[in-house]
């Protein structure tokens, strides 16, 4: 918690004959993060990259085939529901017996489908070429085969008169008009010029015989027939997906594991007879893996725990309680924490829903979003999607709680007075009550900002100690404290001169010197000390001082964005109910009924829009407050992702 999981660095050296056993054992445990071996150019230590285990290429080519079939059938292993887990031995047997037949069947179907698709295209193309000729009542054979005449066929803007002896047919029944002109060869050029002047575009005569209309119909029918055949093949493929999806994803998983195992030595260093590999294992699994390795190889292995030299080389594995785990997604979106620094996931997991609820505090919207997040679980099955939905459901519960406190549901007041501060705006004729307590809410938001930023700076001080060394660490710590001093000094100064509701009133303290009272003097001292503290690390940072004000005030969005969402909800209610539905209910007329229906539509549409806006506003602004205002105070990030060698078996079992 609050720290990535502790890691230990392990060096494994063993004879090459044990490679397979060791790789298998490591893969089974699924905790060993391999540090890839990179040969140093020109070094003479005799180490080189290992070779893949036997069977690697076979497994890889089989895997490619399986993946091809999966994509042809539209199977995505990420989204396949786990129904039964097939034992690995059975999958292996089925790969020998059943798989070739399935591959053959699918490949055959896909091949004939693409052949049919090509045919269908061909027929459609032919039909398209024939279309203009349908307008001309003449068989297609009559267009060609003349030695003394030239035939012009094509689109033209308008009918033309031709001076030379000719035969002509013009039709405006088709798109772009159609003209056919037959002239003796000696007049060919002048006729062509006349036609081109009228915007003539030549169309080649299709290479067919018979009446164009009949041919067109024949092609269209053929295309339709082929479409039916394609649909039948698609049905067959869907049937295969239905029957074999479980088996195919199991094959995929098994072979992926095989390939990964077989290719692992590519990440090891080898000598003539031995191989060595370095990697990371979480502390809690360390001894167990060591013992298992010794047992599996019968002691033919050398294991040594190495010192951790640079903490930034350590892979980072989150270590959070289960309710905070979905929030890790927010961290990865920004940047994974470094090994040495504090992991703020837990704080994000707690504070994010509170911010979200503060902004979108509405029982109605909260309930809608909760239902949405639960409903979408069936659709979104990927890991990231799941995490997002979990965060959303926690946030919407918080939204419901705040809705109860604010006494709000879809912008209507609930039958009790707000338990917290009121956000009810005076919109519409029926406005009652004292209106929203904007100033109070704003000050609460500012208070949250002050505390959140103070927390951030305190963590920053702690991180400075663990991230840097020697003088730099001290300087960075003092700088962080300097920022704190500056902020609180400024606050004391403000409080010493202006009484602000819900904040300490320090105007009444005894005056010490120059009209400054005790609080003001303390404030000035803190302020100056803060500036010195910041400047001793980097004088340029002093330029950043005003950000302290903008960052604190930025938390006012917790109130402001929320109020705008309340305003939209209330306006929607007022327009739809107050202006359209209620007046009509008094005396129902046919026009009134239509107006009522329109009113209901406006109501639904407005609230759907506002739910989407609330989700976007609430989510984006809450996470932004973390990313911009909170994380910039302490967070470094850029940790390496912990990527254990192994796989979590979903569809197969050992």
């Amino acid at each position: 918690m609050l720290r990535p999981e502790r890691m230990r660095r392990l060096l494994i050296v063993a004879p090459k004959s044990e490679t397979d056993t060791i790789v298998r054992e490591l893969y089974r445990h699924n905790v060993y993060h391999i540090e890839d071996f990179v040969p140093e150019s020109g070094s003479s230590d005799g180490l080189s990259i290992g070779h893949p285990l036997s069977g690697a290429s076979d497994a890889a080519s089989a895997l490619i085939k399986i993946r091809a079939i999966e994509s042809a059938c539209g199977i995505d292993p990420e989204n396949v529901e786990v129904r039964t887990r097939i034992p690995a031995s059975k999958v292996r047997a089925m790969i020998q017996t059943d798989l070739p037949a399935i591959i053959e069947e699918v490949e055959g179907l896909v091949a004939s489908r693409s052949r049919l698709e090509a045919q269908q295209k061909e027929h459609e193309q032919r039909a398209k070429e024939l279309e203009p000729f349908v307008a001309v009542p003449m068989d297609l054979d009559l267009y060609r085969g003349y030695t003394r005449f030239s035939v012009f066929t094509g689109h033209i803007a308008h009918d033309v008169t031709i001076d030379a002896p000719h035969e002509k047919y013009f039709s405006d029944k088709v798109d772009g008009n159609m003209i056919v002109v037959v002239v003796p060869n000696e007049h060919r050029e002048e006729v062509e010029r006349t036609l081109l002047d009228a915007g003539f575009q030549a169309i080649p005569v299709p290479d067919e015989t018979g009446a164009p209309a009949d041919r067109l119909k024949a092609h269209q029918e053929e295309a339709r027939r082929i479409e039916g055949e394609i649909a039948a093949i698609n049905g067959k493929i869907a049937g295969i997906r239905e029957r074999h999806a479980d088996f195919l994803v199991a094959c995929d998983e098994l072979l992926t594991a095989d390939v990964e195992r077989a290719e692992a030595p590519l990440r090891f260093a080898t000598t003539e007879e031995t191989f060595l590999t370095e990697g990371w294992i979480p502390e809690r699994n360390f001894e167990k893996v060591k013992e298992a390795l010794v047992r599996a190889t019968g002691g033919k292995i050398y294991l040594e725990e190495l010192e951790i030299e640079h903490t930034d080389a350590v892979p980072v594995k989150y270590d959070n309680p289960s309710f905070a785990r979905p929030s890790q997604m927010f961290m990865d979106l920004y940047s994974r924490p470094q090994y040495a620094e504090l992991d703020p996931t837990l704080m994000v997991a707690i504070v994010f829903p509170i911010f979200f609820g503060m902004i979108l505090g509405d029982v109605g919207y909260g309930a809608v979003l909760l239902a949405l997040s639960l409903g979408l679980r069936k659709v979104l099955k990927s890991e990231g999607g799941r995490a997002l939905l979990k965060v959303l459901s926690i946030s919407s519960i918080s939204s419901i709680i705040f809705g109860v406190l604010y006494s709000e549901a879809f912008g209507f007041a609930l039958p009790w007075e707000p338990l917290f501060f009121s956000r009810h705006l005076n919109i519409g004729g029926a406005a009652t009550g004292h209106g929203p307590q904007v100033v109070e809410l704003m000050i609460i938001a500012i208070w949250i900002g002050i505390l959140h930023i103070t927390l951030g700076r305190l963590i920053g001080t702690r991180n400075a100690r663990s991230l840097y060394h020697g003088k730099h660490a001290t300087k960075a710590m003092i700088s962080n404290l300097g920022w704190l001093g500056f902020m609180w000094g400024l606050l004391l100064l403000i409080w010493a001169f202006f009484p602000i509701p819900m904040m300490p009133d320090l105007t009444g303290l005894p005056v010490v010197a120059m009209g400054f009272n005790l609080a003001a003097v303390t404030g000035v001292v803190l302020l100056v000390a803060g500036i010195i503290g910041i400047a001793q690390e980097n004088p340029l940072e002093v330029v950043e001082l005003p950000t302290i004000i903008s960052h604190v005030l930025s938390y006012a969005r917790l109130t402001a964005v929320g109020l705008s969402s309340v305003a939209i909800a209330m306006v929607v209610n007022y327009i739809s109910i107050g202006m359209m539905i209620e007046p009509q209910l008094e005396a129902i007329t046919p026009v009134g009924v239509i107006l009522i229906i329109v009113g209901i539509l406006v109501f639904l549409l407005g609230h759907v829009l506002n739910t989407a806006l609330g989700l976007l506003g609430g989510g984006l602004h809450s996470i932004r407050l973390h990313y911009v205002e909170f994380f910039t105070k302490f967070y470094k990030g850029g940790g390496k992702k912990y990527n254990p060698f192994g796989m979590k078996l979903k569809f197969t079992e050992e």
Partner: protein
Amino acid sequence: MVDVGTTLEMVQASQVGLKAVGAGLAVGLTGVGTGLAEMGIGAAAVGATAENRDMFGLALLFTVIPETIVIFGLVVALLLLF
């Protein structure tokens, strides 16, 4: 100047009206400002994300930084109105 008979009520009403105008200007103009600022950042951020999917978090962060401007406008508007 002809005295058109400004009564106390009219003065009060126009004060309220001008406040509302001020609040509207505060939100509207800051909104334009935020939009202008986010225009360039957003385009660059989408480009960067298209190149490298991992940039998304940082890109989003950069894009929403100018949001603060319009929030200040909203805060000012709310303080004006209430």
